[in-house]
């Protein structure tokens, strides 16, 4: 038997170590939005024969786009694919750009996947994406509280499941924020899709553990809540891993050899499923125990402003 509950603060620490860098990155660098969320134009251009990245950069500046982001599409089939982000331009301007590049680089460019987004739609999409994630979290919380309505304090189950869920979303969003400025990975509508899917899937494993805790509580064999939780986690450990493994198999295959379009979409899902399994086993039920034991008070007493409580606690001890 693995004692997960007794080591709960170690697991909280591990989670914090993963999440905190992500939050810092989010605060400093935000997310690297693509043209779904950011006004501008993106276009993929392939050159025949291939051209050097620096030569292309010079040519883009000469064509009047010194601010263009140029990226070699590494996952593409042919090595001459460049992914270029520009301020918002029209299709006519794009045609001019292509002919400019053709003359200046002496190579035939072919443009594909031209996407342009205006400022109005971009800001609105971001706002609604955030709303979508929040609404999803609230709905799931209410639903889980409802599903565990026969337990004492059903709301706790919903809240703990949602904290684990938000943990998973923070891990995914944080990692993509870091990927944004390190590898220039951009996020768009598909990323939101991945985040919401993680939200839906993240609670799967949590529910399996919760359901077992409920069953063991109803049986009443173990008087101690902490022991009941620990026992339940151990009982469901294998299935938590196996259910995730099956999903990880297909995601991993899609990640390694699937289409370019969904490469980072699948990566986001993969990270989400893995952290979802971790948080279900190590965090969600542990939070139930923390709440049951009222360990919150210890945290509150650590906050300098409420030192009064601490003194009282010392006295009673």
């Amino acid at each position, binding site marked *: 038997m693995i004692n997960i509950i007794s080591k709960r603060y170690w697991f909280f620490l591990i989670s914090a170590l993963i999440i905190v860098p992500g939050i810092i990155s989010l605060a400093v660098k935000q997310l690297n939005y693509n043209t779904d969320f950011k006004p501008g134009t993106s276009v993929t251009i392939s050159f025949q024969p291939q051209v050097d990245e620096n030569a292309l950069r010079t040519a883009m500046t000469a064509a009047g786009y010194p601010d263009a982001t140029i990226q070699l599409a590494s996952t593409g089939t042919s090595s001459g694919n460049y992914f270029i982000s520009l301020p918002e331009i029209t*299709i006519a301007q794009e045609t001019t750009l292509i002919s400019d590049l053709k003359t200046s680089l002496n190579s035939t460019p072919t443009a594909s996947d031209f996407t342009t987004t205006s400022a*109005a739609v971009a800001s609105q999409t971001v706002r609604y994406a955030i709303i979508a994630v929040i609404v999803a979290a609230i709905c799931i919380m209410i639903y889980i509280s409802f599903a565990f309505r026969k337990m004492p304090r059903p709301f706790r189950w919903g809240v703990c499941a949602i904290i684990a869920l938000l943990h998973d979303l923070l891990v995914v969003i944080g990692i993509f924020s870091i990927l944004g400025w390190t590898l220039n990975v951009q996020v768009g509508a*598909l990323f*939101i*899709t991945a985040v*919401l899917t993680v939200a839906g899937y993240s609670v799967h494993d949590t529910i399996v553990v919760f359901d077992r805790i409920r069953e063991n509580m109803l049986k009443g064999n173990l008087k101690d809540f902490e022991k009941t939780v620990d026992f339940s986690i151990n009982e469901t450990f294998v299935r938590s891993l196996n259910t995730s493994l099956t*999903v990880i198999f297909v*995601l991993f295959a899609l990640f390694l050899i*699937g289409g*370019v379009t969904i490469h980072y979409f699948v990566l986001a899902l993969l990270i989400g499923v893995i952290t979802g399994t971790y948080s279900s086993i190590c965090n969600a039920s542990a939070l139930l125990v923390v709440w049951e034991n009222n360990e919150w008070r210890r945290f509150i007493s650590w906050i300098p402003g409420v030192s009064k409580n601490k003194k009282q606690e010392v006295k009673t001890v």
Partner: protein
Amino acid sequence: MNRRENYLLLLVIILLVLALCIVFPVNNGILGHKDFKEGIDIKGGTYLLYQADLSQKPASETDAQAMSAVQSKIERRVNSAGTTEPIVQLQGSDRILVQLPGITDSSEAIQSIGAVGLLEFKEEQLDSSGNVVNDSSGNPVWIPATAAGTDGTQKELTGAYLLPNSYVETDSLGKPQVAFEFNSEGAKLMEEITTVLYNNGVNNRPLGIFLDSQFISSPRVDAVITNKGVIQGVTLSFARDMVNDLNSGSLDVPLTIIQQTDVNATLGADSLHKSLLAGLIGIACVAFFMIAYYRLPGLVATVALGIYAGIILAIFKLFNITLTLPGIAGFVISTGMAVDANVLIFERMKEELKRGLTMKMAVAEGFHRAWPSIWISNVSTLITCVILYWFGNTFGAFMVKGFAITLALGVIVSLFSSVTVTRTFLTQLVNNGMMKGLTLYGGKHD
């Protein structure tokens, strides 16, 4: 109980045969469509998202009426342009999404959609001394002809005042011309404008006629015109198209493109093949894992997974659901999730066997006890699917919508396949005494 299981088995087999008939049509597509419908991210094409300026809609219409009028006009136009399976959808309250599969020259498409049959009447711009202003190439500069309407405000004379009864006729020389008729407001404007241009026959000036900003003709005004007129100088086919456009009317509200994507077909096809291959490999891994870990029940789960895939593909075809790359990813991921329920059930069965239950009872208990977890977790995924669909629908993010639909379908069908189908098969196996040894089950003897 036994009889019920037999009926269920029969139902499963019928469903499977039906699904296979749809997926592999032998009857030339009588059941459902012949091919899967591919989204523009796979097939290539143009995706345009328009923002309508509802502040400029005709006062007599509600927002919804104006939008649906615009939608049907765009639909008529893209359909007549011969695009295969174009999609014209309203997004939210003031946006229109146009998807044109297979259209790679978006500039032409934009032109034909953006300005549908906007007829304008213009006059030459005059400088302060009354001379015609010419542009750099020596052509006169045209400005919209305006006059005071019945309410006293200055209005531009456009096709908005036409009655929808324009027709093609031939003039005395047998040349085609377009006859049109104004409503009373238009007639008043036309009368005022032509009165000015006619100028009692002294230095009478031309009236420029433009369709979708394209110059058609500029007849010199020889008389004051009121409600009826003709447009000359057009070819027969042009005249026919023009009548079509005039009668379907100009767009009720101005549109601007807020998002545009041109997708190259080769990239899409490449991604499709790779994703399908990846999906197959992933599913094969799942099948291998399930059989290796759970033995006979694992094999049953794999068969159920096959039935699941068959039913899902049949639904895609039957309801002509557009396949997008994320949609295919959603389908592949849902196969991974479909066996989740089986893992839960089989693990529970193992537990029950360890407690000393008979195989038959263990199977029944396994399904019974695992059900609450399966149900609660799948409902939470369905909740997110609904929100994803709403999000995708509001923003015209067709890839998000595609994913939401396939994932939701996957969840619902997988509940059937991994619970009902697996239970039916397993019960049959147990009843026929084919699951006696625990080893068949992957159960340990501890």
